[in-house]
C-alpha cells in the first residue's frame, strides 16, 4: 500500500448499511477516535519511539509538555509467555552477582535424563518396598545385609525426591503450589518423612500411627501416575466427571440427612424396646448409627431382615416403618443410584466428544489453510485467463442473485467484530493440492460457504504491521465499498423489476 491513494468523493452521506457500520465502528475502535474527538487525545499515542530517539524531535517533544513526561503505550501480547522465557529476562537472574541458581534448577528439571532418572527411582522404590515386606519378619541372618541395603536404598530415594522438590522451589517457589500434581508429590514426601521426625522429637513406642505412616511409603508409587501423560488424561477425565456431579452428591447428602433423622424418630420405640434378641436394635439409636444404617439400606443389604426385626416390636407402627423403608429404597437405592450411573455415562460421553472435537478442530484448521491457498491461487489464475474462463465455465455456474453473495459477505464482515486471529501458513509450499480437482465440480460460492466456518475458527495468531495512514485509508475505502456493493444490489433489483414489468407490456 503506497501513500498515494486514489481520492474518493468526500461528501457522500449514505443510508445505513450494516456492514459499513461495522467497518466504521472498527475504524473508530482502532484509532480511539471517540477519545480524540472528545478532546481526551492525551491518552492516545501520538508519537513513536523513533521520534523520541531523534535528538531534534526529542527536544521539540520535551518542550511540548512542561512536566517533560512522556507516556508509553505497550501493546499487550495475546499469547502467554511461559515462565522459563520470562525468567531469562528478569533482573534477578541477569544482574545477579552470584550464579543464577534458579536458571540452573530449571534447566536440570527439564533435562530428559533427570526426569527418566527420577522415574526409574520410583520404580525401584516400589520393588524395594515389595521385597522389604516379604523379608520384614524373617530372622534369617543371611538376609540382614539385604535388608540393610534395601533400607539404605529407600532412604537414598527419599533424599532424591526431597532434592527434586527443593530444585523446584529454587526454580520458582510460588509456581510449585499452583499445580495439583506438585502438591501431591509434596504431601507424599512429607508423609514419608513424618515418622522419622516424630521419632526424633521424642515420641517413643511403636504406636499404631507410626506403623501406618511407615506404610505410607507405598504412596510414593502413586507419583508414577503424574509422570505419564495417558494416566494423567484418564485421571483428569475422572476428576472432571466427579466435579460435574458435586451437586448431585450434595443432594444425595441432603437426602441421607433427612432419612437418617426421620429414621431415628420413626424407630424410637424399636430402639428403646425391652424385647430380647433384637438383632438390629442399635441401628437407629443415635445419629451416627442412623447415618450408617441409611447407607446400609442404600446398598440394599439385609433391608428385609431389618424390617422384619423391627416388626417384632408391637409399639412400632408397621405402616409407617415399611413406608419409610420402601420409600428410601425406591428413592435412594433405585432412583438415585441410576441417576449417578446416568450422569457418569453422559459425562464420559461428553469428554469423549470433546476429545474427538479437538481432533476435528485441527483437521478443520488444516482444511481452512488449504482453502486459503486455493482461493489465492484461483484469483491469480483468473487474472491471467479471465475471458477464456468465463466462456468455458459458463455452463455449470448457475445464475445466482447478488443476494446470495451479499449474504456471504455479511457473514464475513460480521465476523470482523470478533478479534479472531488467523494466520498465513508459515510455508506456502503446498503439500497436497488435490482438492483443486474437486474445485471445478463445485462453484465458488458453495466452496467458500463450506470453508468459511473453518476459516473463522482458525486461531493461530499473526500480526500485521500497517502504516497508520494506510490503515485509515483502508478502512475508509472498505466502508465505501460496502455502500457501493449495496447500491449495485439495488440497481440489480430495479433491473429485475423492470424485466418483470416488461412482460406485462
Amino acid at each position, binding site marked *: 500500500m503506497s501513500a498515494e491513494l486514489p481520492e474518493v468523493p468526500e461528501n457522500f452521506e449514505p443510508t445505513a448499511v450494516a456492514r459499513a457500520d461495522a467497518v466504521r465502528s472498527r475504524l473508530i475502535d482502532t484509532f480511539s477516535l471517540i477519545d480524540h474527538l472528545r478532546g481526551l487525545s492525551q491518552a492516545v499515542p501520538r508519537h513513536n519511539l523513533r521520534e523520541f530517539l531523534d535528538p531534534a524531535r526529542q527536544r521539540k517533544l520535551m518542550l511540548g509538555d512542561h512536566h517533560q513526561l512522556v507516556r508509553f503505550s505497550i501493546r499487550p501480547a495475546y499469547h502467554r509467555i511461559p515462565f522459563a522465557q520470562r525468567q531469562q529476562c528478569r533482573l534477578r537472574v541477569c544482574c545477579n552477582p552470584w550464579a543464577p541458581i534458579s536458571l540452573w534448577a530449571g534447566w536440570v528439571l527439564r533435562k530428559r535424563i533427570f526426569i527418566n532418572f527420577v522415574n526409574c527411582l520410583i520404580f525401584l522404590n516400589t520393588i524395594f518396598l515389595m521385597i522389604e515386606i516379604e523379608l520384614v519378619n524373617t530372622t534369617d541372618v543371611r538376609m540382614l545385609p539385604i535388608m540393610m541395603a534395601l533400607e539404605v536404598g529407600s532412604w537414598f530415594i527419599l533424599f532424591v525426591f526431597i532434592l527434586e522438590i527443593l530444585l523446584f522451589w529454587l526454580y520458582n517457589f510460588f509456581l510449585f503450589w499452583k499445580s495439583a500434581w506438585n502438591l501431591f508429590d509434596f504431601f507424599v514426601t512429607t508423609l514419608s518423612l513424618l515418622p522419622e521426625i516424630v521419632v526424633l522429637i521424642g515420641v517413643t513406642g511403636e504406636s499404631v500411627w507410626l506403623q501406618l505412616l511407615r506404610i505410607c511409603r507405598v504412596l510414593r508409587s502413586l507419583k508414577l501416575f503424574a509422570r505419564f501423560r495417558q494416566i494423567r488424561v484418564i485421571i483428569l477425565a475422572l476428576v472432571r466427571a466427579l466435579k460435574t456431579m458435586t451437586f448431585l452428591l450434595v443432594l444425595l447428602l441432603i437426602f441421607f440427612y433427612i432419612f437418617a433423622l426421620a429414621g431415628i424418630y420413626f424407630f424410637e420405640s424399636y430402639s428403646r424396646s425391652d424385647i430380647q434378641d433384637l438383632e438390629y436394635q442399635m441401628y437407629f439409636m443415635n445419629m451416627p448409627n442412623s447415618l450408617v444404617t441409611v447407607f446400609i439400606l442404600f446398598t440394599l443389604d439385609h433391608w428385609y431382615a431389618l424390617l422384619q426385626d423391627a416388626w417384632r416390636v408391637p409399639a412400632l407402627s408397621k405402616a409407617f416403618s415399611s413406608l419409610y423403608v420402601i420409600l428410601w429404597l425406591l428413592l435412594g437405592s433405585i432412583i438415585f443410584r441410576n441417576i449417578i450411573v446416568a450422569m457418569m455415562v453422559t459425562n464420559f460421553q461428553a469428554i469423549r466428544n470433546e476429545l474427538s472435537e479437538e481432533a476435528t478442530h485441527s483437521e478443520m484448521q488444516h482444511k481452512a489453510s488449504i482453502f486459503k491457498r486455493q482461493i*489465492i491461487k484461483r484469483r491469480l489464475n483468473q487474472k491471467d485467463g479471465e475471458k477464456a474462463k468465463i466462456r468455458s465455465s459458463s455452463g455449470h455456474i448457475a445464475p445466482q442473485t447478488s443476494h446470495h453473495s451479499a449474504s456471504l459477505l455479511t457473514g464475513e464482515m460480521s465476523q470482523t467484530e470478533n478479534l479472531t486471529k488467523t494466520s498465513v501458513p508459515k510455508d506456502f509450499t503446498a503439500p497436497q493440492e488435490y482438492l483443486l480437482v474437486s474445485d471445478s465440480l463445485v462453484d465458488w460460492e458453495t466452496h467458500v460457504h463450506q470453508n468459511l466456518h473453518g476459516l473463522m475458527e482458525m486461531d493461530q495468531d499473526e*500480526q500485521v504491521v500497517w502504516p497508520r495512514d494506510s490503515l485509515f485509508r483502508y478502512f475508509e475505502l472498505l466502508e465505501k465499498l460496502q455502500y457501493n456493493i449495496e447500491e449495485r444490489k439495488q440497481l440489480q433489483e430495479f433491473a429485475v423489476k423492470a424485466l418483470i414489468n416488461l412482460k406485462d407490456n
Partner: protein
Amino acid sequence: MYMEKDYILCKIICIALGYRTSQVKLTTFCFVQFFDRRKDTEYCAYVKRFIEGRFFSMLMISTISLNALCMVLQTDYDIKNYLFLVFEVVEVLFVSVYCFEFCIKLYVDPLGYWKNGYNLLDVVIIIILSVPFHVRKLFGRHCPYLNIGEGIQSLRILKLIPYSRGIKTLITALGQTICTVASVMILLFLLMFIFAILGFSLFGSSDGGDLNNWGNLAVAFFTLFSLTTVDGWTDLQKDLDERGFGLSRAFTIFFILLGSFVFLSMFVGVMIFHTEDSIKKFKKELENERHVALLQEKQNILKKQQEEVSRLMQKGTNSEYKTFSELVKGFKKTLRHSDPMVLEDFCTTLPFIDIYLSTLDNQDNTISKLQELYYEMVNVLNQMLDDIPTKKRSFSSEKSVEF
C-alpha cells in the same frame, strides 16, 4: 399489580357467567382495586429488592443450616436434657423466621407466589412445622404418632434448595425424567401385582403353605420386592423349599430375571437416555441465552458508538462538520506513513484481503453473467413480440388458402 391478561380473563369470565353490563363493570372495578396497589408500589419494590438481595439469602441459609444442626443435636437425650431451654427458644426463633419469609414473599406477589414450586414447598413445610403441636393437642401426650410428627421435621432442610443455584438447575434438568420414572414404577408395580396374586394362590392359600411370606397380599408384595432387590432371597427360597414346594424355584428365578435383571436394567437405560437428553437441552438453552446476550451486547456497543459520533458531530462549534470524514480530517493529518501499527484482527490480515478481493472478483463475474442473461432474455422477448403479429398474418393467410 396485575397483568393485563388477568384483567381480560376476569372480564371474559364475567361475561360468560351472564352478568349484565353494570355488573361486569362493577366486578372489573373491584378487580382493579384489589390488585392495583398503586399506593405502595415503591415499598413493594423495596421489599422485592430486599428478598432478592444477598443479605436475605445469607440469612435464610444460615437459619436453615442452624436449624438442621439443632435438630441433630436434639436427637441425643443427654444434650437435649442439658440444653432444653436453649432448644425451645431457638425453635421459636426458627419458626418465626420461616413465617416471616412466607409473609414477606406473599406480600410481594400474592398471586404469583403460588405458581413457583419452591414456594409451595415452603408452605408445606410450614404446615409440617405445626403438625407435632396439633397432634399433641388433639391426641394427648402419649400418642404413638407423635414421633412420626417429629420425624418429618427433618424435611425442613429441603428449604435450602432454592437458595442454591446449582441444585436448582440440577433438579430442573432431572425434573424431565420424573415422567419416565413414574411410568417405569407403575409397570413394576403391575408386574409385582400379577406375581403377588400368583404367589399367594400357589404358596400362601393352603394350610401347609408358607403363610409367613405369602399369607396375604401385603406380605406377598414385600416378598416380591425383596426378590426384585435380590436381598436375602435365598432365605425366602429356603422357606419355600422346606414346605415342599419344589416348583417354586422356577417361579422365583423367573421373577428375579424379569423384575431385577430386566426391569431394573431397563430403568437404568431409560434414565441414561433421558438424563442425556435433558442435559443436552439444558446446555443448548444456556448457550443460546449466552449467544443472544452477546449479540445484544454487540448491538448496544455499536449503537452507543454511533450515538456518540452523531452527538459529537452535532456538538461541533460550527455546522461545518457535515459528514464523518470532515470530523476526522484533523485527525487524519496527524497520521504519518512511518508510524507502524501492529494489528491482529482478522479484517486487516493479508489472507483476508486476498480472499475478499478474489471473492469480489467472482461476484463481479457472476453479476456480469447475470446481466448478459438479462439482456438475452429481453432480446428474446422482444423478438417474440415482433414475431406474433407476423405469425398471425401468415396463419390467417394459410387458413384462407385452405378454404
